[in-house]
């Protein structure tokens, strides 16, 4: 187990630096932020001065060195655009994103497991068809469109929920619903099909032979085994959820990392984009690691073999 975790950690570190480098160079290839910051009336000299001030006149290699050095010291630099410490900006935005994403993700997982399992259990029933329909619908509609429709229906038309903001629990309903809508269908489908495979297995037959009630067969014997392959997918879903978060934050005016990222990318606010990427990468990699470790919890074979 320790070996496994160490190897995964090493892989994460490699992946992390890969991501860091790709971002660093792509960003610099994407253009020069000094042109954005400069007023249209600046002279060429002024622009050069600004560049020098921002450290953008150095070669990419030098810039990378400086950057890596400051990262090691925990310093994400200062936003070019907002003249504010990136650490503080991330500190403001990250909790907001987590507040939205964590419960949505957990909710989506729980719902997808419950719905997926029920659909598999009552295969071909109206319930199964309903679940399949929701899954297919969820995969067929553009997410932002659904979000805006939700606003128009629940906020504008019915006036049940606030449109945007994050002040009260009611503000969480629509964005969370949207995020759940992003993740739920795919997950639900997967749980359903894994569950179907598991239900076909011999040990489920054996559990029934024991005379166990269906409830126990499903929720004790089948589900635990059906958890394994959706767990792998959770890791793969995460980067996709980032997209969901960006769109959700944009529409529901949620001041999180997604919005920060979009704004900063278009403004070529290098330090901010890099910091957001780093944080996202750490989150994604970290959660992937957790997922890997949680296999061990679900599947004793892995737990024991890797000891």
């Amino acid at each position: 187990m320790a070996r496994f975790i160490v190897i995964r950690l090493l892989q994460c570190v490699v992946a992390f630096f890969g991501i860091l480098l790709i971002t660093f160079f792509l960003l610099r290839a994407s253009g020069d932020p000094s042109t954005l910051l400069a007023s249209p009336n600046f002279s060429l000299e002024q622009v050069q001065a600004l560049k020098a001030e921002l450290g953008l006149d150095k070669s990419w290699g030098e810039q990378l060195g400086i950057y890596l050095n400051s990262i090691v010291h925990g310093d994400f630099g200062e936003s070019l655009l907002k003249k504010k410490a990136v650490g503080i900006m991330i500190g403001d935005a990250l909790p907001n994103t987590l507040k939205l994403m964590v419960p949505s993700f957990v909710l989506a997982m729980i719902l997808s497991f419950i719905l997926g399992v029920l659909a598999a259990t009552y295969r071909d029933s109206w319930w199964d068809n309903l679940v399949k329909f929701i899954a297919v619908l969820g995969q067929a509609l553009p997410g932002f469109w659904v979000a805006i429709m939700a606003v128009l229906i629940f906020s504008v038309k019915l006036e049940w929920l606030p449109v945007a903001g994050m002040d009260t629990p009611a503000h969480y309903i629509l964005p969370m619903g949207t995020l759940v809508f992003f993740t739920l269908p795919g997950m639900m489908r997967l749980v359903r099909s894994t569950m179907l495979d598991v239900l076909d297995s011999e040990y489920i037959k054996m559990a029934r032979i024991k005379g166990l009630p269906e409830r126990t067969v499903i929720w004790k014997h089948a589900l635990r085994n059906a958890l394994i392959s959706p767990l792998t997918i959770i890791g793969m879903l995460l980067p996709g959820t980032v997209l969901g978060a960006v769109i959700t934050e944009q529409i529901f005016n949620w001041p999180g990392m997604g919005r920060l990222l979009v704004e900063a990318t278009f403004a070529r606010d290098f330090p901010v984009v890099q910091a957001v990427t780093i944080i996202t990468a750490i989150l994604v990699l970290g959660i992937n690691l957790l997922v890997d470790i949680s296999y061990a919890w679900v599947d004793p074979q892995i737990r024991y073999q890797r000891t």
Partner: protein
Amino acid sequence: MKKWFLVPLFVLLATVIIFTGCQQEAQTVTQTQTQTQTQTQTETTIPEPWGTLTDVAATFGYDNFDPNLVSSWSGLMFQNLMRTTAAGDFEGDVLQSWDLSADGLTWTFHLIPNNFFTNGDPVDAAAVKYSIERFADSARSAWSPYLREDYNRVAVNVVDSLTVEYVTAHAEPTLVASFSATAIVNKADIDRVGEEAYFANPSGSGPWKLVGYSTGISVKFEANTAYCRANEVPHFQFYQQYLVPELATRISMFKTGQCDILGLDDYARMKALQDEGYPVEQYGINGTDSFAFQKSWMEEAGPVHDINIRKAMSYSLNRQEICDTWYSGYAIPGGQFFFPHGVFGWTDEIVADAYDPALAEQLIAEAGYPDAFANPIITVYCQASDQDRILYYMSYWQAVGLQVELKVMETATYWSYLGFGPPPEDNIGWIWFWKSWSYACSAYHCANMYTTNGVHKVTNDETANALYAAVTTQLTYEAAREKMAEFQVYVKGLYTNIGVVEYQNYFLYNPATVGGFDGRHTGYAETIQGATHA
């Protein structure tokens, strides 16, 4: 290892996160201001401000509270040296009056007495001198070229606590425009806490003071009841603006009453909402919608090197139809760049070109288009947000036989191509659209546009240079204004910059909370300032 307890634990965790999140205040700036500004307000008859006016914005001007860096909102918190009037003239803001010496070299500013910053410091000559010099510092100001020492300034002198003298090397009456952009910051406070702390929590002398700000989320101002113009103290106690990037969300917020003010770029939507019963309020001076030709004087520019083609592009536009359709009637045909009605140097001689497709076709034929050109395709560049409008304009050009193609650029690239810095590619002959909410004084923008030294590289014309030099060397403001008009008429004739329309600026407001706007309408901030209760 007991396992199932993890699931409820997870749920619990999620719930805790949600609720702690909800309880946390969205504000990050906590204002602990000393309330010392009561002495001037003894004889006031104005009712205490109350209530909150909520506004939404697509982009924020509040990333930084240094008025020299971000000028669009500075009128909320800071007074300027001078300010514009609705007619396009200038009056004092922190000034009671000013004099210009007969030789046109010395400006004497007389400050309003008993004017205080919101922290109680007086608005005195030292603060004004510091603010002017700070504004002139190129490192600190976006607009500093106008006041920079090497341009024209000789000295800024403090005469007494309420008088400041500004001396120039040669006469430049158009400096009033710069003065009107010079925000007065609190030098004493900066000396006390340092620039960084000051601009995180600034004290100005404007009608509002900052009470809360969270980066990229919202900003909140409270009415400054000690504002030096008692009759201009806001009726609302708070003015809060949220950053909402998504238009659909902004409209929804407005319709559900989550915000009281809604500004829109989309005039059709505005018209529709107006028809639904939401009133609109016009503010400020008209904006201009125009397009420019980069380096059109160069041979390689292709078709647009030929003035006939450029003229044809103007004559083929049906400006009235554009006003009626795209702008839903909230615009009038316009003829010049940065020259809407009422600005410095406006003259009635500048008339928008009439819609004359026959003339356009004739001009095109005269230019020998398309056969005379190796590459007859005219390329138009724009940002994604403008693409629909440009596409529409292009349809007029296509209708008279011009071959046009559109290239959409991401905003950052667009600006970087547009004049400063070494462009990634040589942008000769390309067409750029400018949609600008214009400044009260267009002189400097014109200089940048039309003179050889200008950064935008549209015109390279000696006569234009000479005419502009004549403007800046007049002794009086009135004379300069006349020269400016002359210059403008001339540069319009160059067709290197073609105006399409002058659009009017409006916002919608919620009649349930806002009764109207009784203040000055010279700009967005000034209009909002006068919002009355319903």
